[in-house]
């Protein structure tokens, strides 16, 4: 037995041991909703249950989808502008530019780095930030399904990150697609 397979075996034994210990554990729908919204987060025992129970995971994902749907319906009702189209020249200069909706601003800064040619700073207005359940992240995605940036806002309401698609530029994507703020 190699060291690697030995480590795997030990890990498997530990996992199996946990499963036996947690045989009677349960996770109610109410507890799932609580963890997704106001907290507290799942404890170790509940997390282990989620790992080993497809049924519990399915209920978790369904609850999360419902929650996301509820929040985004609320955005629509309150007139949150979570989608914005920006027509940028595809061959525009490598200089910063901003895309603004009523409720969020995305600023792009060019970088001299082929691995990360742009830095993105997404600033979200307070009324939208405050509607985010603790368990969900904001995500900016374009109409073609490409994810631009994902995360939780920092104390100043910003999510900062890099452009991770070296084959295409943000300007090229903006030629074809609108941007949509969503929750994941």
């Amino acid at each position, binding site marked *: 037995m190699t060291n690697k397979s030995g480590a795997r075996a030990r890990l498997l034994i530990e996992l199996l041991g946990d499963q036996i210990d947690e045989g009677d554990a349960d996770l109610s729908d109410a507890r799932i909703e609580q963890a997704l919204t106001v907290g507290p987060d799942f404890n170790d025992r509940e997390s282990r249950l989620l790992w080993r129970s497809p049924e519990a995971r399915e209920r978790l994902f369904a609850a999360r989808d419902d929650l996301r749907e509820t929040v985004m319906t609320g955005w629509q009702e309150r007139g949150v502008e979570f989608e914005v189209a920006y027509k940028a020249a595809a061959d525009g200069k490598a200089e910063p530019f*901003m895309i603004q909706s009523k409720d969020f601003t995305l600023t792009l800064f060019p970088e001299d780095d082929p691995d990360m040619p742009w*830095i993105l*700073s997404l600033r979200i207005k307070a009324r939208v930030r405050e509607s985010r359940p603790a368990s969900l992240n904001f995500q900016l995605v374009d109409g073609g399904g490409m994810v631009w940036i994902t995360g939780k806002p*920092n104390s100043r309401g910003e999510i900062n990150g*890099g452009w991770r698609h070296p084959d295409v530029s943000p300007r090229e994507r903006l030629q074809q697609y609108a941007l949509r703020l969503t929750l994941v």
Partner: protein
Amino acid sequence: MSEVSFPIVGSGQAELGKVSCVRLSPEHYPAGRALVLARDEREVERILADARHDEPSGAEITRPIRVRVKPSQFTGESFGLALAIADKRARHDQDIEGQRFAIFATGVLSADGAGRVGAVTDIEAKLEVIDGTAKAGDVVALPKANADAAGTGLNESLDRLAQRGVTCLSVEHLNDVEALWLGPWPPPAKGESNDHSRDDAEATGIKSERTPPESSRPGRMAVLLALLLLLAAPAIWLLATQSLPNDNRALVREAALNVTDDACDEAPRDDGGARERARFFDQPRAAPLQIVMSSESDYDGEAAEAAASLMRELRFTLATGDGCPTWLLDIAVHQDGTDIDITMTPRWTATGKAIFDRDWTGRIAANARDSALRPTVETMINAMLRQLFIQRTVGSTFREEQHED
């Protein structure tokens, strides 16, 4: 772009990380802020605030920057000195295109905002990493605390670097290396200018560029500022007396107009947010006030301990000014016979300009307990607030809005 490399050693790692800072336009990012791309955004912001707190107000301090720390995963705080240098060079226009020397730095920036540079662990291994890359003309900055306690291995590394024409600077305080951002670098050779002096540490292979405070640029600016304040004092007094009690936020408002921090989401970009800030401060809210404990204390009795505890607790917000400038105050505790003197001193900060021009003092008995200390400090804070013309009693504000660290 301003770049400073730092060594990462430990857990199987032995490599050079890099901090890079770029100035951003206030059109695209709020003035006075940093867009941070790093493993721990809060830690980077904490180091920047501590590194900048002594800077005089001026264009440089309000310039927004982009900070990037690579790699994204490593542990430890020894990149603090590298971050501070990169930040200052970017904001002081020392990120010159075609710069012919590289900067390497390792050092922990103290969390008390005093600009002190603390020792790092594994200094010999860290210097080995730098040794593998540094060339003639490059600069290496390391904590004086490490240099002073140098063992044979460290001295050998320093000797090797010096022989290759690498300048090694031992740094006790950030001001020791301010020539790196105030320029010019390299500084004029001895004899051409008396602005800089080298200490005697050259014998150990370490050169230290120390700039006497009285000849430094911040020092000159402080003198200039003091003169301006002296000249403007009658006008300020007249304004203050005429403003009371109806326009009790006038002075805060004036100060806010000079602070180019972005006070709220709606701040317009065209005027740097000044108009919006004026509106913001016309509303019944004020800037958050943060109080920090000074490390300056020559008394370690129960009252001093209680003072430290109280200061930690006194991180309270006067109003809902999220994103507004933060004013820092030092609280110093000194024993004077059977009494303890408490002094509250405003500081320059990274994001705002303190508008105070005086200290506040209080005195309690050396054997006093927390119950005696708290009202004393509250009275001092009330006195400060009276200068700000904020008609709120700190007692209630303090109890309502204090929050845990």
